[in-house]
Structure formats: C-alpha cells, structure tokens
C-alpha cells in the first residue's frame, strides 16, 4: 500500500509541485488526523471480526459533551475530556452488550448510529451548535510544540526504540535464539528517518501541531498493546478463530467488549480533535463521509473485514491514502466527483486484494 501512496503522491506532484510543499504536507497531515484516530479504533473492532458504523456520530456526541461541559458550563478542560471519553466508552459498552447477546454488530451499530444522531440533538443546546473559538477547548488543535522540543521528542523516541530493540536482542541471545544486529540497525534507521523527517516537515510553520502528537502517542500505545502483549495475541486469536480461542481459555466475549471500548475512547478523542479544529460542534459533527472514510482507511491499509488480519499502521496508512487523494483533488481544483471516483476505486481494489489474500481467489472453486 506504500506503493499506492507513492504513486498517488507522484501523480499529484507531477500536476502541481505545491502538492509536496511543506505547507501542503502539514495541511494533509492535519486533515487526516480525525480519520486516522477513528480508523485506529475501527481496526481494533475489525480485528476481532466485528464492524462498527456508529463511531463517527458517536465522536460528534462526545465532542458535544466535552464542549458543553467546558465551554457552556465552564468546567476545566481535563474534566470535559474525561467525560467525553467516558461517554464514548459507555455508549460502546451498551452496544457491545447487544453484540455479545448475539445481534450482528452491523445491525447493532447501524441502529446505534441512528439513535446517536438523535442523541446529539439532546446533548447540544437548543441552538444546536456550540462554538469553541477562543476557549481552552480550541487549544487542543491550535497548540503547537516548539521545533526544538519536537526534535528532542523525536530523539527520545528514537533512542527508546533503539533501546527496546537492544533489550529484545539481548533477551533472544539469552535463550540462544537466532538474533541479528540487522534487526536493530535497519528498523532504527527507518524510525529515525520517519520521525526526524516528519518533525522537520511539520515544524516548518509554527512548530509541531498538537493533534499530530496525539495521533503519534495513540499509535505508539496501540502498537505496543497489539504486538507486544498477551492482550494483542488474544485479540488476533479471537479474530482468527473464535471457537479455537474459546477452547484455549481466552475470554472471547470480554475481548470483543474491550475492542468496542477502545473504539469508544478513540471516537471521543477523534470527535474532540475535530471539534477543536472546526472551532465548534454542531448537528453535522461526525456525519458526512467520516465513518466510511475511517472504515475504508482501515481496510485500504490492510486490515481484513473478516477479522484477525491487519495492523495498527493500517489506520495511518489508509487515512494517508484517502486523505492524499482528496487533498490532491482539491489542490488541483478538480471537481468533487473525481475525488469520490478515485477514493471508491482505491477502496474496491484494496478489498479485492484482501479477498485474494484470504481465500486465494476472488471467486470460489478456482483452485
């Protein structure tokens, strides 16, 4: 999928060199933040073999809760954030109960989406909009980390990565397993290149935007949890074969619940970041193409709709692919239909690839 991204970038760059300017790359990054955070949560749910349609609208509801508490009721920002995250997880808890009861998650979350569209009208004040301009809430998106601090953060992150790899290397040596120093050097160089390149690009204007840091931290935690812990293995096991996971003593239902709770928290964060960027919450928050973009991002990035396959990075990669298309189309002044055609085609191709990888052929009985 990196190849697809490179092709997309090359095509747009050939049409307009401004596409790969620092300014546009920063714009692009900020445009995909909401989708990426939501897609991250969607990946957790897809990995256990479920699906969700309600989280985008839920993100609007959570943003309304946070903005209502902080802007209209004057509570401190951390309280509003905590309340929004709690609300997101509570809604997902209820939906997960219905899923564990045996109702297909597609139906549960479809119904949940409609109910949440009603709920946002209840949560919002009578004028159906909360403006957050000029309040502490707006600083979630507008805050920026100075370039110097950002480089220091990148350096710390790189060092931490190298240290963790070295730790694993020594662990493997201690049990006489195969271990090679290339598994430290090559990934470390890659990580350093991405981190410093990213910081260099994104601090051209005002320093590193806060939403970028939020996404980075969430991705980092999600990477650790899904690939390095027992929880991660169980997550993939439940998505791979529920029966087998159950027989191995894995609490399948609880794992499904956890995934929905993670998505609830992600939806809340996505909603708050989005509201802060848009400087307000309204009835339309979380509506529009956000939900389908988040699912499409996860799938385009390589997460299977059938569960058990995919990675955290698919959220970022897929959001980048989809965001790159819409950003480029807008930059070139092409009409909106071109954007829809291109995004839709990429989605279909990605799912086709997924089916071929899973089953070996698009249609059964060919092999």
């Amino acid at each position, binding site marked *: 999928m990196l190849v697809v991204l490179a092709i997309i970038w090359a095509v747009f760059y050939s049409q307009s060199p401004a596409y790969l300017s620092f300014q546009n790359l920063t714009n692009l990054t900020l445009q995909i933040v909401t989708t990426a955070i939501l897609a991250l949560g969607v990946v957790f749910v897809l990995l256990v073999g479920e699906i969700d349609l309600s989280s985008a609208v839920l993100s609007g509801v959570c943003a309304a809760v946070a903005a209502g508490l902080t802007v209209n009721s004057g509570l401190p920002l951390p309280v509003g954030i905590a309340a929004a995250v709690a609300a997101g997880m509570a809604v997902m808890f209820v939906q997960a109960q219905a899923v564990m009861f045996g109702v297909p998650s597609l139906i549960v979350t479809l119904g949940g989406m409609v109910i949440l569209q009603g709920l946002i009208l209840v949560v919002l004040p009578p004028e159906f909009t909360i403006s957050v301009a000029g309040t502490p809430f707006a600083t979630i998106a507008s805050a920026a980390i100075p370039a110097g601090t950002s480089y220091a953060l990148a350096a710390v992150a790189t060092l931490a990565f190298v240290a963790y790899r070295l730790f*694993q290397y020594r*662990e*493997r040596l*201690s*049990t*006489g*397993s195969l271990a090679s120093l290339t598994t430290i050097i090559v990934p470390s160089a890659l990580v350093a290149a991405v981190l410093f390149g990213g910081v260099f690009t994104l601090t051209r204007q005002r320093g590193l935007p806060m939403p970028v840091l939020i996404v980075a931290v969430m991705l980092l935690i999600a990477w*650790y*949890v899904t690939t*390095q*812990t*027992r*929880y*991660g*293995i169980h997550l*993939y*096991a439940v*998505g*791979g*074969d529920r*029966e*087998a*996971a159950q*027989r*191995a*003593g*894995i609490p399948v239902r609880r794992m499904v619940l956890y995934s929905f709770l993670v998505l609830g928290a992600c939806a809340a964060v996505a909603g708050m970041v989005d509201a802060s960027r848009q400087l307000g919450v309204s009835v339309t928050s979380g509506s529009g193409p956000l939900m389908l973009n988040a699912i499409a991002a996860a799938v385009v990035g390589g997460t299977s709709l059938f569960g*058990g*396959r995919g990675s955290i990075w698919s959220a970022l990669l897929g959001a980048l692919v989809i965001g790159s298309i819409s950003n480029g189309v807008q930059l070139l002044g092409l009409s909106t239909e071109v954007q829809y055609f291109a995004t839709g085609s990429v989605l279909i191709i990605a799912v086709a690839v997924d089916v071929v990888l899973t089953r070996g052929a698009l249609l059964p009985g060919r092999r």
Partner: protein
Amino acid sequence: MTVDSEPQLSDPSDGGPHSTPLLELRKVSKHFGGVRALHEVDLTVHPGEVVALVGDNGAGKSTLVKLVSGVERPDTGEIRVRGQHARLDSPRAAAEAGIRTIFQDLSLCDNLDAVQNLFLGQERHGPVWSGRRVRRHVMEEQARRVLESLSVKLRSLNTPVVALSGGQRQGIAICRALISDPAVVILDEPTAALGVSQRGEVLDLIGRLREQGRGVVVISHDMRDVRQIADRVVVLRLGTRVAEYRRGGYTPSELVSAMTGAHEPSDD
C-alpha cells in the same frame, strides 16, 4: 457378541502390564435426555501405552472423549487419574489433572504463527505494569524444544499456521497439548483428512508420545491406523464396551464385526 480376548480387562483394578494406570474409567455412564450414550464403560490407560477407541457412529466415542476432557460430566461411575479420584468439571480441570485433548478440528488459529498457537491461552508473559508483555524469546525457545522432541519440522516459527501442511498442523496441535506436560493425551481422529505421507508423520508422532511414557488414547475410524499403532483396541457399540483386543490379537474382520455387531460378515 462380546469378544473378550484378554481376561484381564474384566477386572480394571488389576494393574495391567505396568504400575498404576494413568487414566481409569470405572462403570461410567452418561445419558442425554432419554438417550443412553454410555453405559457402564470401563477403560484403563497405562504409561507408554496407545489405546485405540473404535466404534461405529453413535457408539459413544465422542461422549467418552467429552467426559475425559472435562466438557461433560458422567452421570454415574468414577474417573481416576494416576489412581486418584478426579473431578473433571471443566476443560481447565482436565488439563490441570494432566489430560489434554486434541480435537479433530485441531482448534488452531490460522492467522497466528506456530509459537503463538502453541502457547495460546497459556502465554509466558511479563508483569502487569508491562501490560503483560509476551516473553517471546522464552516461548520460542520452549517451542523449539517441544517441536524437536516430536521431530516436527517447521521452516519458520513465524509463519501463520494456515500456510503449513496438514501433518505440520497436527504436529503443532499435539505439541500444544505437550506444553503443559500432560500424562494422558487424547487424539480425536488424528489422521482424518490427511494424505498418505502426512498420515505416516502423525502415526510417528503418536509413537513418540508413547516413547515419552505418556498414555495415549486415539479415536479412529481407520482400521489401518489402529492396527499400526494401537497396543490395545477398545470397541464401543451403542454406548457399551463390547470388546477389547491386544496388539496382534485380532483380525480386521473380527474388529469390524465387533463394531457393527454383525455375526455374518455380509451384514455390514
């Protein structure tokens, strides 16, 4: 028709060829509603012994496996493990008592690799503050040892098991059972749906389990398998044990007629 080719089996407390039996069932019965699935069945498994359990469909083989693996509880009768009375109320309890069952579908997660499958549900992990970080290097090392002990050869421990052959998958399923070092291993139709060479591989695996001194119960439809590996054959029909043979003490047609209850060979 009852073919008790060995006088010893009517008396299960008799000790057998070795010392205490690893697993012993005494007059175990199980009913499902009004259906009699098992009626006063006796079974003993000794260390280093392969016992084949054969019978037609509905003979009670799967019920017996369910009782011993802790999925179902017997209505009456007693299950003893290493001479001690055992209550196998759950699969976990059975595993703790030292009985591991490998079901016909193997219960492997196709998307996970060999190491993850071997330790599924019993991962070696770090403390809670590390988020129960999986100690992959410890698991890999142990996995390599277990796989080696049964001569299961894998090109890589990191490939998802979906890419492996049927024999390798069966090998991983058996090795998974061995992670907790069980005394008794029960295999449900281990060679069903396997090719000829893979079937040979699996029969070799079973032989190595015997060499390790474990008790092995094999449920099988395949008379060739039974003749090749079983030290003892127990025949079930309609929920009762109708016959038991020692290795070499029977002919295939005797076995078939015991299974089907047919007196004439034509009545198949």
